[in-house]
């Protein structure tokens, strides 16, 4: 079944979410977020809990943690570690790509 449905949408740039909004969006508890902040996996803007602001990158990390926890049956600490390592791999890969490009010319 193919339904054609063309809609033109202007995307809101960088929506910022409060702790409450973030919990609602991801269907998780504030405790879950606080734990991820403690692990350093999330670094929201703002100092106090009430003024924390999250962006879509944080959202993405949370989804990643949820997926890893659920699909691979790992705990929060394991997921936080996996995410740290993935960040490092991403950085290293970008550097490799850069170096390879500068050597190829």
């Amino acid at each position, binding site marked *: *079944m*193919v*339904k*054609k*449905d*063309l*809609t*033109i*949408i*202007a*995307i*809101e*740039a*960088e*929506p910022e979410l409060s702790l409450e909004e973030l919990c609602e*969006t*991801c*269907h998780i508890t504030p405790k879950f977020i606080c734990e991820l902040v403690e692990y350093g996996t999330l670094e929201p803007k703002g100092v106090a809990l009430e003024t924390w602001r999250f962006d*879509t*990158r944080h*959202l*993405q990390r*949370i*989804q*990643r943690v*949820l*997926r*890893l926890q*659920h*699909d*691979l*049956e790992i705990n929060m600490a394991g997921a936080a570690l*996996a995410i740290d390592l*993935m960040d490092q791999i991403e950085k290293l890969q*970008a550097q490799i*790509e*850069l170096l390879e*490009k*500068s050597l190829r*010319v």
Partner: protein
Amino acid sequence: MEFKDYYTTLGLSRTATADEIKRAYRKLARKYHPDVSKEKNAEERFKEVQEAYEVLKDSKKRAAYDQLGSQWKNGQDFRPPPDWQGFSGFGGTRFSSEGEGLGGFSDFFEAIFGQARQGGAHRGHQRAPFKQQGRDEHARITISLEDAFHGGSKTVQLQVPEVDAQGHLRHATRALKITIPAGVTAGQQLRLAKQGTPGAGGGTPGDLYLEMEIQPHRVFTLQGRDVYLTLPIMPWEAALGAKVAVPTLGGSVEVKITPGAQTGQKLRLKGRGLPGKPLPGDQYIVLQVYVPPANTEAERALYEKMGKEMPLDIRKNLF
């Protein structure tokens, strides 16, 4: 529809124990998990593995699946047996998590085990439909570096689950034309409010999240918002200095190379990277001195002259 051999998917024999099934799943899930894996078709493979595990880990579902018999081969054209209603009554947890991608399990799975979940999704057959918010959906789109810089519109095809008039869940293709703001970065997610799964019973639709993937560019390399360019220069340009035209995403600019430049030297064009708040990225130019080959007699003479006029023991520090 195609028959799915769940045992083959997990690399198991039909006599595998529950422990073996769990072990095989865990191993393959780690191997093909889309967040972790760099394998080709990781996402597709992961879904297959998940679907197979969904069935085989549950003794009732496994028994029902085994009833279909072992004569079926993976990918073979499959028609459900006439009495296949007998397999309903399964409460499936179909989606891996709230964040899981678009499109769920195969048609085969739907045909054999899908009924119960749908029963759950619209219990409202007998009762008045309850109000329920639609699911958020996630998808990935690939855009060019130019689009990321300038912004632009792009039409994307999305596979979206949809509940039809009979209450069956189907996959429909939806085309969405999307305006991408200038300065999106790789991995960034854009939220399209209310473009996810429609709500039930008058509930609000979920949101659609689009993850931006930026295509590798022929000359530029991206690091966050910074753009890198390797700029080849000739030896005399490096030695004497020069003014050189350099491409940037915003158009060509003239760059001054100071005398005595070397390979690896970095120049920064402030604010010439991807736009963004609070500050736009920069463009970095990495110089690379190119040594032209000596093909003709005159060219050879030039190099020989250089060798005589500019004696330098460049390797003395190696010993």
